[in-house]
């Protein structure tokens, strides 16, 4: 898979994930418009003006809003929190999958880790951090990271995934009278959401953030991550450290990785570095003269190569 393909794959997932969040304001807008126009005694004209646009996608969006209104009192579709805003923290325990991937999650969190989860509950946008899902990890160069596990992707939207089948049934009920083109688009949209929920069921999000020495997030404004990597990837960037350009190679690795071998592929001498990875995270700074092509190899304790990745900046 090329980088362009990977980018497309990731953005496709985000399109489906963001859609339910966006629909709330549309629903509210429609409710307000309808209420105002009803009081003016122009319901029919209003409906034509508000609902019937020239383009099928707009009609589909309005159809989805109608479906949303019709189902908002069904228990599965009620907003999860009384004020309709998603909670910041999830009380869910980490899944077996997460526990296997990150043995650190098996120990009780420290006070600092609990506090980090509490104060960065929206570290990954709308995803909720598991209240016991933050663990501090130390790389061998002394830099510190916070691993944060978030409740399943898309679960922070304020409504249960169980709502989607209810909405699909409601949409189907409206099929005989709905505009066929708008109906088809609306159904595809709901089916895409259902697929995304199904695929993400039981899967947690993962964010790893670099920390400053005082324990705060090193990212801008402390809201989003400075380094966001997932298991199985590594990143490389060119940074200026104490006035000198440095290649910073970092990554999160499976618990079976004992050390990494980092090698320059563009320097004529092909210099090679071995770094132990005791807590599943590594960060290595190299002189910029080692070039822009680097390979990272994961190795087991017996020296067996587990995976090799080629990176460029």
């Amino acid at each position, binding site marked *: 898979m090329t980088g362009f393909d990977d980018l497309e794959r990731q953005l*496709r997932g985000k399109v489906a994930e*963001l859609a339910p969040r966006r629909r709330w304001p549309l629903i509210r807008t429609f409710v307000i418009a309808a209420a105002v126009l009803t009081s003016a005694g122009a319901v029919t004209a209003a409906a034509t003006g508000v609902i019937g646009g020239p383009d099928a996608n707009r009609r589909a969006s309005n159809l989805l809003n109608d479906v949303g209104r019709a189902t908002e009192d069904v228990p599965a579709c009620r907003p999860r929190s009384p004020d309709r805003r998603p909670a910041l923290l999830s009380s869910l325990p980490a899944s077996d999958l997460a526990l296997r991937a990150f043995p650190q999650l098996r120990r009780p969190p420290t006070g600092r880790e609990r506090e980090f989860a509490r104060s960065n509950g929206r570290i990954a946008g709308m995803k909720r951090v598991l209240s016991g899902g933050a663990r501090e990890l130390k790389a061998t160069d002394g830099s510190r990271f916070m691993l944060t596990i978030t409740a399943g992707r898309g679960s922070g939207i304020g409504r249960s995934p169980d709502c989607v089948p209810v909405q699909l049934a409601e949409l189907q009920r409206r099929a005989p009278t709905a505009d066929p083109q708008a109906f088809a688009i609306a159904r595809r949209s709901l089916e895409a959401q259902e697929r995304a929920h199904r695929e993400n069921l039981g899967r947690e999000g993962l964010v790893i953030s670099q920390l400053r020495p005082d324990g705060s997030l090193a990212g801008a404004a402390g809201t*989003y991550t400075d380094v966001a990597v997932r298991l199985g*990837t590594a990143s490389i960037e060119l940074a200026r450290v104490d006035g000198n350009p440095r290649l910073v190679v970092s990554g999160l690795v499976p618990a079976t990785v004992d050390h990494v071998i980092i090698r320059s592929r563009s320097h004529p001498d092909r210099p090679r570095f071995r770094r132990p990875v005791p807590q599943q995270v590594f960060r290595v700074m190299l002189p910029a003269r080692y070039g822009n092509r680097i390979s990272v190899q994961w190795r087991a304790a017996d020296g067996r190569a587990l995976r090799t990745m080629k990176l460029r900046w």
Partner: protein
Amino acid sequence: MQRTDEELMAAVATGDADGFSTFYRRHLPAVTAYFARRVRNREAAFDLAAETFAAVVVSAARFDPERGPAVAWLLGIASHKLTDSIRRERVESDARRRLALQPVSITDADLERVEEAAGTDPDLGELVAALPPDHRDAVTAHVVDERSYREIASDLQCSEAVVRQRVHRGLRRLREHLKEMT
């Protein structure tokens, strides 16, 4: 039947991932070529293209077809990303961070694709530059620089209606060019 860019953007706003893929594949070559011809570093061109499409996903719901075609909106995003990166001497990753995307490993095939785009693919900026001068200036001022019709009219010493007409015609021509290419 092929969906228009505007239909695709409306679909993206409702969560249609296939709609996004169509839009992405339709415009990736032109966006990549736009950056590849303006920045020397191929990886930076890739990053700028990635950031541009991430911004498309972030702001799809705000796209308003009444303000102009989607391709002009896309050009505006690309142009802002390029200006920002030149001013800050690095490619920002705000949109990708907002979406919490995982880093993308750039392969040799990607770099070849960027190289190829720089040499052969039509470029959004060049299409705008090829518009008649009065249309080009009006489109650039309104879509890329986000200036109001009133401001532009005052600079050009003409009425707002004339500026609106030039922007409208320029964008229509741009859309026709792109339709011919796809």
